[in-house]
């Protein structure tokens, strides 16, 4: 029977540093007193507190074993357990000043596997979000095509559909960390990242249906129906490769915050190109130089030049548990787990270091391992109580190895904002506290 917490979630806890040291020195008996003290604040805690004869959670039958539970369809659309409410999308205070043009981050620290629950998918809006009537929504495909066409949602959903799992990552994910550590947890360092099974029609199907100009049509413009009229240029070879016009995520229609009823899915490319509330596709012979590829989503280099049309999310990984803000209370075995992904294809391998990058071990990749999709990795670790720095390093099928932050800085400086795919370091101190650090 385990009564000792193994992974404490934050420094704000009722255990004092001295008590933590006692646990780690093997003296667990004090915990009874600590738990009892806490129980006066929180009755819930007393339930797990063992007595001489055993665990009251076993010895005293709970209500749910002795009474009648709730009927079916009590929640016609089911909700997470009330015990799960800590895991929410959150904003990073101070990052933006207007909620309509802001971002909320996915709580990666609490997610399992590779699928992001729809209600926790990260958000980025440029001029607020809408819940659009699907009967009024239209998609127009025009420009260098034989015939410009209009499709209703009914039309689109009659076409040959495909379902594919892909990650979506904002180009600015981890952007706050270019110069130095700036935020405490993986939610804020890496949480502009989500992964879903998307269902829709391939963009190539629509382009073919309109008879696009195969010779001169080199680029596609995607445009949203929201106030910002979000627009991004996609090169034609990419558009024909695996870009989708999608209406569903994880088995249900898109959520309004994620573009209901129609969005572009541009696998491997930064999230801003996944235009939400998609209303128009234009085929052209030049890139379109839109606001979000001229004034934003341009990467400032040390020589003052702005890299334009940077799109691909290069290979990256991060350990999600243990991660910043969590706390190892116990020495011994821990499952170290995280996510890896590449905008250029499949993840081939993930290595994990426990000594700040000096020595590495291969982690186990969990199935499925899909192109341009999150891949979950796990590796066992026995913590001996000494300070440690945990890192993960992903390698994709092109052979590209995820770089260190100093390697990125040597080429791109510290002010480029976008496309920071550096190796993330988490320091475990001897007290067990896990904190965001940079080590290279």
């Amino acid at each position, binding site marked *: 029977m385990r009564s000792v917490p193994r992974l404490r979630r934050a420094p704000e806890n009722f255990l004092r540093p001295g008590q933590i040291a006692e646990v780690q020195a093997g003296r667990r008996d004090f915990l009874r007193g600590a738990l009892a003290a806490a129980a006066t604040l929180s009755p819930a805690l007393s339930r797990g507190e063992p007595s001489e004869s055993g665990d009251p959670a076993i010895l005293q039958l709970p209500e749910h074993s002795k009474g009648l539970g709730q009927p079916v369809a009590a929640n016609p659309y089911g909700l997470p357990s009330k015990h799960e409410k800590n895991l929410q999308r959150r904003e990073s205070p101070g990052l933006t000043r207007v*909620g309509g043009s802001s971002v909320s981050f996915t709580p990666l620290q609490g997610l399992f596997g590779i699928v992001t629950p729809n209600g926790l998918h990260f958000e980025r809006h440029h001029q607020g979000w809408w819940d659009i009537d699907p009967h009024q929504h239209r998609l127009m495909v025009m420009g260098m095509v034989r015939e*410009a066409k209009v499709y209703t949602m009914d039309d689109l959903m009659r076409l040959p559909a495909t379902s594919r799992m892909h990650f979506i990552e904002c180009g600015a994910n981890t952007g706050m960390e270019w110069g130095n550590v700036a935020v405490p947890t993986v939610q804020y360092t890496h949480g502009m990242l989500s992964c879903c099974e998307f269902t829709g029609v391939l963009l190539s199907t629509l382009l073919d249906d309109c008879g696009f100009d195969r010779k001169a049509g080199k680029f596609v413009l995607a445009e949203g129906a929201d106030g910002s009229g979000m627009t991004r240029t996609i090169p034609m070879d990419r558009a024909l490769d695996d870009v989708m016009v999608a209406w569903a995520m994880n088995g249900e229609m898109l959520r309004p915050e994620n573009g209901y009823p129609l969005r572009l899915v541009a696998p491997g490319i930064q999230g801003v190109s996944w235009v939400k509330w998609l209303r128009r596709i234009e085929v052209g012979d030049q890139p379109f130089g839109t606001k979000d590829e001229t004034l934003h989503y341009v990467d400032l280099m040390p020589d003052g030049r702005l890299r334009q049309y940077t799109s691909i999310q290069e290979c990256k990984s991060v350990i999600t548990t243990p991660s910043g803000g969590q706390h190892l209370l116990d020495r011994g075995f821990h499952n170290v787990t995280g996510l890896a992904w590449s905008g250029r294809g499949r993840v081939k391998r993930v290595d994990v270091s426990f000594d700040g990058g000096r020595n590495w071990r291969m982690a186990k990749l969990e199935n499925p391992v899909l192109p341009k999709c999150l891949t979950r990795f796990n590796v066992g670790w026995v913590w001996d109580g000494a300070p440690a720095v945990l890192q993960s390093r992903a390698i994709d099928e092109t052979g590209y190895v995820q770089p260190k932050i100093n390697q990125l800085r040597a080429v791109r400086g510290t002010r480029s904002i976008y496309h920071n795919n550096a*190796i993330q370091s988490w320091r475990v101190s001897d007290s067990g506290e896990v904190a965001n650090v940079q080590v290279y």
Partner: protein
Amino acid sequence: MSRFTRHWAPVVTGVTLALVSPAQAGAQSKYPGVGRPATPAEIRAWDIDVRPDFKGLPAGSGSVEKGQGIWEAKCASCHGVFGESNEVFTPLIGGTNAADIKAGRVKSLTSPDTARTTMMKLSSVSTLWDYVNRAMPWNAPKSLSTEEVYSVVAYMLNLADIVPADFVLSNGNIGDVQKRLPNRDGMARDHGLWEIRGKPDVANIACMKDCPTEARIASTLPEYARDTHGDLALQNRTVGAGSAVAPAPVKAAPAVATVRADPAELAKRKGCLACHGVDRKIVGPAFREVAVRYKGRPEAAAQLVQKVKKGSSGAWGPIPMPPHPDLGEEDAATLVRWALGII
């Protein structure tokens, strides 16, 4: 506007009329019965993008002088009278000079101490035209006429000393303006992050044992940032990976990104807080200042609801409050009641 679409659309001119009828289109398609031809009017209504080579730019003109009036009525509340404001959005104007206009590269982009303004980065004037036209003003996008868009763009170019105060921007001279943009040659496309097979610019090696490292902590969370994200314990599951102790709540976690019905949230959602702080003047007065002024005057509420909806000027200084036609009567009343109750 798409030259090609016009050329190929079925209904445009005698030259192309013979190409396809809707019925023929269906017959040619692999997916008969799915979709229909777009009409020329539909294409005109939506094909609003303007490309760097000015394809899509509607004919027209607008003066700096007219632009100033529009700016002060519809833009200055967020961007500042001179486009310099950093209160709501990052500054639009500043950081460029005559030498940059000559060189075509903005020197201050190399300075770590200079905040980046829109005008410092702008490499294609079409982008400015396109974005003002499609997305501005913030709370009423796509509401400006073609002349108004030309005028506002002219005014911004004048603020940045790219065109003189008596300038009239038009489709005829916008190409000349392009040649004076301070950062017209500031973009780089020689990187590997666009093409599918682009070459990465940074390479690591997969060393496994006794790898070279600096073996030191190079950066940690700064002291001032330690508490900015609230109680981290309340942002983790309370069970799992061993099991965890539920901590006593210490500090509130940061705002959860959900839409709630309370007035403060409504104020945020409707964008009020972009211009008004609760306790702090931003571009408009603080809500508390409004509450103090109208204290003991219950009849003021109805009047304020109309001011919120229809706009108002002069009551709090030179910057007018723009109209908010899309704000419902009930929401406006809720917001006014809330603001008046702040003291």
